[in-house]
């Protein structure tokens, strides 16, 4: 992973010393991608907002322990994506218990401008696979970095990527035809 830029190091240093303006700069820089990543994994607007918010709160509470030489993004994304996976798993369990109709299985109503094909494809993947796709193609991590972030063997990351991609490419192609 590439180290943080000078600007980010300065924001982190300032935030650690209690500067609200530096924290705000860091927050504005990282919020959109953290929020989007959570949304793509959980596919629920309210939950995504809660997860991104909680991840930032956790990050702020542990700010003093953060090593400024490391980039802030992976630290935050690890929290966001792991919490999003936990939430999505919990929801799946609740749905099993509630035995809802199959048609209600995934809520894609909040996806906005996202192509229907990709939306349906992502929704049809298990949350762990969604997380790997999001880390690779939205947040631009390499498979090795993803393996580190999720504490997974690299082979597992690659197989999840391959399977997820096959499904998504198929749906995107179908949509184009």
């Amino acid at each position: 992973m590439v180290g943080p830029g000078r600007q980010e190091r300065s924001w982190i240093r300032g935030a650690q010393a209690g500067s609200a303006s530096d924290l705000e700069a860091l927050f504005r820089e990282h919020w959109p991608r953290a929020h989007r990543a959570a949304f793509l994994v959980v596919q629920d607007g309210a939950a995504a907002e809660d997860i991104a918010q909680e991840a930032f709160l956790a990050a702020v509470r542990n700010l003093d322990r953060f090593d400024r030489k490391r980039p802030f993004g992976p630290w935050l994304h690890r929290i966001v994506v792991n919490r999003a996976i936990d939430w999505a798993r919990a929801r799946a369990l609740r749905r099993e218990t509630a035995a809802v109709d199959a048609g209600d299985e995934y809520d894609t109503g909040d996806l906005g401008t996202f192509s229907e094909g990709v939306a349906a494809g992502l929704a049809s993947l298990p949350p762990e696979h969604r997380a790997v796709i999001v880390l690779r193609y939205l947040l631009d991590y390499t498979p090795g970095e993803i393996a580190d972030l999720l504490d997974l063997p690299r082979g597992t990351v690659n197989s999840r990527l391959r399977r997820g991609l096959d499904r998504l490419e198929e749906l995107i192609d179908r949509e184009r035809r």
Partner: protein
Amino acid sequence: MRSETPLQRELQRIQAPDEIDALRRAWPLVRAALDAREPIAWPRRNLRPLFAVAVAVVILAAAVSPPGRALVGSVRDAVGTEKKMKARPALTSLPAPGVLLVNASNGPWLVRADGSTRRLGPWSEGSWSPQAKYVVVTRNHQLAAIDPNAMGAIRWTLSRSATVHDARWAPDGFRVAYLNGRELRVVAGDGTGDGVLRARVGTTPPAWRPTADHELAFSTLDGRIELVQTDSAETLWRTLPREPATQLVWSEDGERLLVLSETSLRAFTADGRKLWEIGLPVGPSGVAFVRKSHRFVMIRFAPATGRSDLVLLQAEANRGEPRFLYSAPGDFGTLAMSPNGMWLLVGWVKADQWLFLRVEGVKAKAVSNIVEQFGGSTAGVPLEKAFPKSLSWCCPASP
């Protein structure tokens, strides 16, 4: 940046719903978390390696000299002080003067400032009279006023046809409102003149308006909130129908009313004007006013993470940025403000603990084994069923 694939382009196009507003909502909380933490000053952070060296020197000194051993003793004392911040196994005292009325799974209990506890007889639940001279208690079809200072002696009692619950004593002591099934009834403070106020109402506990002349807020069957003058039975105002309220709480001066529901919190003025409304995620929640103010503490549960936060807001037209007070995994079940307004008691269900938090500051005390201390048991019973369900810290009693 690696070369862009069609999938990457699709993913990059996505915006999470309500992205800008979500950012605006999140920032005050993140900012508050920065204020709430105890920042380690720069010099202290840089002194960590030096401290490690100093500790090594102390250990070495202890091994070779009596003064060194004394120094190690003082370090051990400092660590012991830190341990005292951990949860105490039993409630040995309250951090502020006053008496707690605890509605536990097996009925009402009193906790005095010295930590002594006493069960108030075979009743289901209880509520303070204004100066804590009496407690109004209920059980099945029975309503009674008992004297907590005379071994729970019964002063008067009434029996009704349905299940009696959620009795509340008016601030002047001359009226008691209670629910008899779905019927809202009012009786005089001496147990006479019992009568129906409304035939069918919602299940929310009614709330007397402090400083007013027998004005009572209650919820209707269709989810309205109504303020009624109980002597004339005249409706002073009512809201539009909404989802059922779970809690009605007045500020101490009677000028603000908070209406908590499953998914929202609304703030009203005493004349029924809505100041604001905020949406809440479904989950445990609760509110308690800070004494002599329109500020209040709210439990905010985040279902995505399973954590509960305590945040401070104000029941004014501008509710202000939420100030973050505390956070923990699981549910916060109960809230009560100490009579001197300095401490907040929070029931932390998942940990079977009570947390005493200073409202202005970072001090916190925790007491564990709460269920057991109030005669309950968690064997075969979910903790949330066994944990005390409500508290009131007197006097004046917290709502």
